[in-house]
């Protein structure tokens, strides 16, 4: 509807300036510092005792001690599969994941940890959707958490890009690919649910996940940069040939020595390109290794896996060839595409395992998103 679209677009133009928002934010922070939340405020998951910061830290330190001592914590292991609404969910978030984040000391580990937590929130949404328990309230909470983890992963990767673009690239690709598949899985589970609320909530949540997946891919600067170089270079041979032809024609009409067509300047980013390519390859091999280790009962599925693995291995060889020829940008693109394939496949297989029977058989519907 043209009117409603225009009307909406015009309306959406009204917004806070950056300054105004900053002022609002500052006033709010001030007030929140002056009147902090009472420590006995119930956590949304009704395990209020864990909101008490001191107790939380003590408990976490205890768990950490047990963790390090190697005897394993019974409670925290059981909590790992808890879902929003379960009593142990608060332990999962405030203890287990607290520890996970605390154990991540390097910038890479930190970014990785946030990406993992984002994926975990989506998996929880899937579990809830398959059980028909995905209420609007829970979805709101999960979405806030998801947004937070994605934002954290993104800002950490941005910083990481400067020092270690390879690490940043593989985290971004991993996140974008796994979210894309998980979004499709969630949509499907939601559609299958007999519960109306679950249906609607799943759909909305999946849209959000898809948005994050696209954003993560967009933010993957090292890979985008290589893609750009490769694309530019494709138009270069024509330019180089034209220049050469011009030089030849000049030489034909004069007796001056033929000027050499300058060789293209060595790529400034070739060192980092090399590192990025190497890391993307390493990660792909890691993921492929995990896939190989899975034993698949379903023959059709096993066949499908073989097909994807075959095409992935073609991409890997192409990457190797380019790498060997010091064409690091092409290598990056090839290895990145291979990594995307591998992660998409692994994510699908993991979901298949958890929702055995609920997901469409491979070959019935194409669950995996297209590679751009």
């Amino acid at each position, binding site marked *: *509807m*043209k*009117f*409603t*679209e*225009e*009307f*909406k*677009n*015009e*309306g*959406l133009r*009204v*917004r*806070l300036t950056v300054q*105004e*928002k900053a002022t*609002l*934010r500052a*006033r*709010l922070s001030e*007030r*929140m510092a002056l*009147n*902090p*939340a*009472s*420590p*006995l*405020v*119930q*956590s*949304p998951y009704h395990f209020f005792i864990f*909101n008490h*910061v001191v107790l939380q830290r003590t408990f976490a330190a205890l768990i950490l001690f047990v963790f390090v001592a190697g005897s394993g914590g019974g409670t925290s292991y059981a909590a790992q599969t808890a879902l929003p609404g379960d009593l142990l969910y608060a332990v999962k978030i*405030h203890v287990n994941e607290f520890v996970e984040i605390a154990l991540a000391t390097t910038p890479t580990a930190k970014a990785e940890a946030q990406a993992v937590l984002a994926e975990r929130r989506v998996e929880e949404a899937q579990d809830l959707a398959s059980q028909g328990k995905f209420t*609007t*309230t829970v979805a*709101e*909470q999960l979405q*806030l958490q998801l*947004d*937070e983890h994605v934002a954290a992963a993104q800002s950490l990767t941005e910083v990481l890009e400067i020092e270690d673009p390879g690490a940043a690239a593989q985290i971004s690709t991993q996140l974008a690919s796994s979210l894309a598949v998980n979004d499709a899985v969630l949509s499907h589970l939601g559609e299958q649910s007999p519960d109306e609320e679950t249906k609607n909530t799943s759909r909305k949540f999946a849209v959000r996940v898809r948005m994050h997946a696209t954003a993560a891919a967009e933010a993957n600067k090292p890979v985008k940069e290589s893609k750009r170089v490769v694309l530019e270079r494709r138009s270069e041979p024509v330019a180089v040939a034209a220049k050469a032809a011009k030089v030849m024609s000049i030489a034909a009409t004069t007796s001056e020595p033929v000027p050499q067509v300058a060789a293209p300047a060595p790529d400034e980013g070739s060192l980092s390109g090399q590192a990025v390519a190497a890391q993307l390859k390493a990660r792909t091999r890691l993921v492929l290794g995990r896939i190989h280790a899975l034993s698949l009962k379903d023959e059709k599925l096993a066949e499908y896996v073989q097909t994807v693995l075959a095409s992935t291995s073609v991409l890997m060889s192409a990457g190797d060839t380019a790498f060997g020829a010091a064409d690091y940008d092409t290598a990056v693109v090839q290895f990145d595409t291979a990594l995307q394939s591998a992660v998409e496949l692994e994510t699908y297989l993991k979901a298949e395992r958890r929702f055995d029977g609920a997901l469409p058989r491979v070959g019935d519907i194409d669950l995996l998103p297209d590679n751009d």
Partner: protein
Amino acid sequence: MVDTEKQFTAAFERYADELFRHATLRLSDRERALDLTQETFLRAWAYVSRGEEIHDYRPFFYRTLHNLIVDEYRKHKTTSLEQMVESGEGGETVESLLPADETNALEAAMDRFDGKRALAALAKLADPYREVLALRYIEGFSPKEIAESIEESENVVSVRIHRGLKKLRTLMEPEAQS
């Protein structure tokens, strides 16, 4: 940071813009809109920090903002608001029995109007109509969500949207047939 504070801050980041936008469209005064938006968050925080739970931030914020806006109008004693609220939704008129699909026809008829002009015309409507039209067409609330946010029945909301559109159309095309 305590969990509650984190969540509230995240909710602020998420909804501040749209609440401000909504306040501006309702009041046609950017300064006041900014003040009321701030007040909305401060009040919401007061609620949360004394131990109350907010299950769904969005309608809670809109409800708080709505109450502040109504107070704002009362302060300035704009008679049109009182008039509209009293006479508009009071009795059962033939109009109030109109089905929702008439609204779609209205929307379609408005297709030839310029969205920018429509927004300017919105400012001339009385507040109850501005509210539902802004929530429906700009923020994308469903009639059910609007009902929840402004604490009216869905029926009242549908009728108000319908009437609001009609009035908007009248404003934009003085020679329109009724």
